[in-house]
């Protein structure tokens, strides 16, 4: 029976040998040229185009902007509102000078323009669009220098600033701040909202005199002008113009797996204005509401997709990977309510981005490049 045992050991040994030689490199072929298999799972590329769109203007929250604007550019007149509630209590104001540190100048100014300081007579909130009343008589004025390298300053009358000091201890008094406006200007000057605004206050308290600087506790700017001036397919930082668009997918079957979907927006540079911002980009939001009416429009801010303008291509463009959006629309067509395109720098500059839409050049139109997988087993 030793032979019997030997046979068993031999069989066992053969399979242990085979098992020990296992590795993990199965048959491999190039370019899907598999000789014995029908490819039933293919990757297909398809372009989708806008089938409906709307451009609307959103005033936005300028109080959150890191910049404030004074002057006129593109028929938009900008005035500044400032409030200082951090002045000292129970002091005698000797003098107060407001200094504005510029960031950029829009337009091609030949000379400066005169700006006036008005005392505001009504309450305002920087987180809303202010609707103020103010003393029509200018309390002070100054010439806004046309150069972005020159700071602008103006002396604020002592009695106005003293009123702000007194308001700190007397609740019957109000401190609504000041309005800086103008009557005519051929450029607009952009200032840093927080770090660029300084109130230098010289005051006496008893026998001592001191000088302190203060940043505004509230700042914003108001804009006058025709809001929807540009009828183009555009996004703007100042206005602010936003685009709603919806894509149709007639060539893509239902319930396929979307591997990749990229929205490509090519910039019409001839009809755009690019401001001084170093990084210019946009956000794409998925619209949740059936209505595109501005007061009924809702969109999901949690899954926003950001795309930056790339100027290193033949035509500057922004690309957005919105694979998950498209997967949802293909899985359920009723979910395709469109997308909202906004600038990342709303209220921060006069930049205006026009995208070609109604054009014979199809390569310039917004396009959604979709790669999807078909699984079609026989």
């Amino acid at each position: 029976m030793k032979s019997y045992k030997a046979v068993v050991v031999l069989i066992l040994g053969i399979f242990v040998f085979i098992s020990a030689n296992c590795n993990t490199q199965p048959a491999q072929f190039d370019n899907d040229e598999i000789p014995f298999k029908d490819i039933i799972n293919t990757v297909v590329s398809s372009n989708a185009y806008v089938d409906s769109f709307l451009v609307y203007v959103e005033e936005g929250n300028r109080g959150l902007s890191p910049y404030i604007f004074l002057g006129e550019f593109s028929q938009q007149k900008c005035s500044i509102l400032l409030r200082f509630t951090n002045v000292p209590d129970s002091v005698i104001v000797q003098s107060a000078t407001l200094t504005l540190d510029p960031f950029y100048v829009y337009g091609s100014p030949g000379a400066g323009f005169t700006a006036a300081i008005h005392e505001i007579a009504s309450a305002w909130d920087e987180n809303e669009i202010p609707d103020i009343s103010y003393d029509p008589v200018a309390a002070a004025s100054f010439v806004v220098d046309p150069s972005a390298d020159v700071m602008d300053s103006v002396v604020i009358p002592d009695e106005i600033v003293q009123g702000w000091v007194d308001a700190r201890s007397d609740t019957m008094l109000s401190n609504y701040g000041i309005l800086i406006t103008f009557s005519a200007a051929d450029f607009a000057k952009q200032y840093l909202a927080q770090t660029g605004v300084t109130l230098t206050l010289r005051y006496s308290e008893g026998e001592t005199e001191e000088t302190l600087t203060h940043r505004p506790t509230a700042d914003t700017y108001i804009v006058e002008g025709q809001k929807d001036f540009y009828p183009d397919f555009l996004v703007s930082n100042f206005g602010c113009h936003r685009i709603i668009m919806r894509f149709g997918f007639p060539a893509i079957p239902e319930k396929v797996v979307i591997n990749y979907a990229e929205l490509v927006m090519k910039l019409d540079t001839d009809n755009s204005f690019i401001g001084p911002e170093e990084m210019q980009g946009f956000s794409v939001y998925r619209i949740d509401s059936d209505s595109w009416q501005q007061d009924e429009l809702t969109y999901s801010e949690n899954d926003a997709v950001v795309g930056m303008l790339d100027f290193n291509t033949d035509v500057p463009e922004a690309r957005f990977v919105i694979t998950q959006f498209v997967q949802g629309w293909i899985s359920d067509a009723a979910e395709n309510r469109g997308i909202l395109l906004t600038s990342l720098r709303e209220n921060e500059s006069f930049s205006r981005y026009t995208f070609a839409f109604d054009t014979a050049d199809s390569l310039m139109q917004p396009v959604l490049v979709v790669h999807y997988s078909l699984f079609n087993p026989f």
Partner: protein
Amino acid sequence: MNILRFMKMTNRNPYKTCSLAAAMIFILLNSSVFGQSIYGSFGIGELRYFSSVRAVGMGGAGLAVRDPIAQNQLNPAAWVTVDNVSYGCGMRFEGIRFNQSSRSNTSNHAALNTISLAVKPASNLTISGGFRPHTDSDFEIYSKTPDYTRVIEGSGGISIGYFGGAYSVNDKVALGINYLYYFGADFESWLINFKDDDFVDTASNLLRHKKGQGISIGVTVMALPRLHLGGVFFSEAELKTEKRIKTAAQSQQDIKGPDIKVPYSFGIGFSSEVAPRITFAGDVFRWQYKNLAYKGASGQNYNNSTRYSAGIEVSPSEMDEAGLFRKLSYRFGGYFWNLYSPDIDGSSVTEKFLTAGMSILFNEKKTRIDVGFEGGIRASKSKAVGSEKIARIYIALVGVEKWFVRR
């Protein structure tokens, strides 16, 4: 019971021996992964040709071999020699070493091969049932493109359950007929893994159930006192399919699939006892698979397939007092098979195999352990497709019992 008798007869500790056998089976099953032959991905899978483990040792030639203990899985007419009640079950172990350019892969596969039972209610009538494999579809394939890697994994196959009878017309001629029930499923996993991380990879699964019916008829003829001829014909079968699809974008979905027309096949063979305890056998089997069709679906081209096999069996001694090695039966053979998978030039991919086998009789020669070995190459003319070195071991326990005899 027979095993225990064998152990007692050979003075072996039955528990020790059973433990050894159990350990062996455990190791083999544990090392089993898919057979992973790329040829299994083609058509309805890799065809299996199996008559009996005894025939495996003779290159598979068994159409004309009438065995009193083991059932012939292909030719029902050969059942007429079964003594009263015959049973059998067997396993198949397969190792494949795939070579493609500088790439190679080894995989093992273990599967229950057959179960069968035959009963002889009358001297000239035998009825039998069981099942055997018809095709296997175990594979794993990678395909690389500049943008993504595709991974296709498949497993499953088609089995045949059969029930039929054999009738001995006279001492020379026997006829058999079988009802065949084709059943099985193959599972395929399709993955697309993109190189760009921004792309969403795709995973899709497909499960295809298949079922259908057919018949086979067989005949054995004693042409000369030492020469038997055999023939068998398998009818065309229509396999109904139901496919179950699941992808990332759609939940599980059951859809009727296209019917599969499995064409007819047939074979002839001979066996000749040229000398006492020396038997020659040969088979030729033909599958008309050029007409294999996934109705309205697959555009693949299929070839007709022909398998040529021959072998010899030698049993040195039937004497009880002979030594163990003299009491064993030894078999050697080989086969050449033009598969239905077309090669790059349109001809068939081929298999060339050498086979060997042996049998151990015990329990008063009523029970037998048959072992068959097959080793060979399945190769394409295309280096890109590569070749496979295949080793198979078949093990079966077959025996006869007296179940319906008054004692």
